[in-house]
């Protein structure tokens, strides 16, 4: 007999967030690429330029959001992929912890970089 899944854990929130962040990322990622490769060429990037952009509050906020959403989206995506492969029990718990810690580190470090550039 199949087990009846009793412990109710909804996946709808993360599923929805994955889509919402994706929709947001479409815009920001395109913008990001366009700005740093076509408007400014990557090989011309200098600290001063980066600093100038980052000091704009709107840009700063966008980049932080970009960082957070991309981290969530990417890490949640990886987690989903693992669950799709059927990981379970301990392995699943481990994946949650490792991915969780990694994303916190990533976001913290990212914010520090942004702050450094913006000079906060």
């Amino acid at each position, binding site marked *: *007999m*199949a*087990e*009846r*899944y009793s*412990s*109710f*854990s*909804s*996946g*709808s*929130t*993360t*599923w*929805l967030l994955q889509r919402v962040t994706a929709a947001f990322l479409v815009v920001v990622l395109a913008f990001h690429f366009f700005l740093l490769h076509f408007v400014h060429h990557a090989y011309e990037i200098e600290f001063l330029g980066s600093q100038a952009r980052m000091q704009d509050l709107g840009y700063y906020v966008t980049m932080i959001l970009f960082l957070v959403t991309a981290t969530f989206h990417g890490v949640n995506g990886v987690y*989903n992929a693992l*669950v*799709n*492969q*059927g990981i*379970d029990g301990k392995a699943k718990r481990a994946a949650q912890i490792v991915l969780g810690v990694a994303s916190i580190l990533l976001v913290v470090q990212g914010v520090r970089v942004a702050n450094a550039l913006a000079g906060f």
Partner: protein
Amino acid sequence: MSTQTPETETETESETEQPASSPHQERRLAEKRERAEREAAEEAADATKFDGETLELKVFRYDPEIEGKEEPRFDSFTVPKEQGMTVLDALIFARDEYDSSLTFRHSCRQAVCGSDAFFVNGQQRLGCQTQISELDTPVRVEPLPHQDVVKDLVVEMDHFYDQMETAQPFFDPDDLPEGELEEQRQSRENREKIKLSTRCIWCGACMSSCNIAAGDNKYLGPAAINKAYRFYMDEREGEQKRQERLEIIEQEHGVWRCQTQFSCTNVCPKDIPLTEHIQELKREAVKQNLKFW
């Protein structure tokens, strides 16, 4: 399908009056002639068993009990090619003529019992619904992937049945009309909406084709989700059961596992738009959950 006699002019005017001249008729006549010729030829040349066109059938063999078959292998059978021959016909021929131990499930021969889903030339198909003429030769027939093989083409279906039952595949209305002979009302639109989902014949082709179901044993799978859809969308369904069912399909190994690979939809012999139904339930789950906030 292969022989379309270009006959457009005569057809338009004499469609109903003269069915005798339809392309089908001509095709059958041609077939019959061909068959007669082939039979005559067969008798003439006894030495080679089949004179007409033949095809090679490569069939997966395995039997845990029989020496020499414990190791999976492929056997080749030469089968005379006949018009309108299906993969199932070819298998039956091979079994009855060469090796009566060749084992596969089949029953209805008309795509309703769902017994004979095989992996034919790399795709999940019903043997009885697949014309040999549409396939490249040699035709390779294997048991459904991602399921334990019991013997030859027979796979273990219990897991599939379990998943179907997990979706609570039964009707549970809140209340029924008074009076013994009163039916519940259902609009035509609503019946139309659930129509395709009610066609499932439990063949398991979809489940076997899904990479996610292959990796995640707990994934309900497209057929079970479609079953849930069939009841969830039925306007006669009771509110209580509808909620319960939603909870079943939206738990971790429910609809969210679907990565919209569409292979289930591609292989379903009953043309059920499985991916669409799964997606609709995902949205439904999100909507319902947003409501609770």
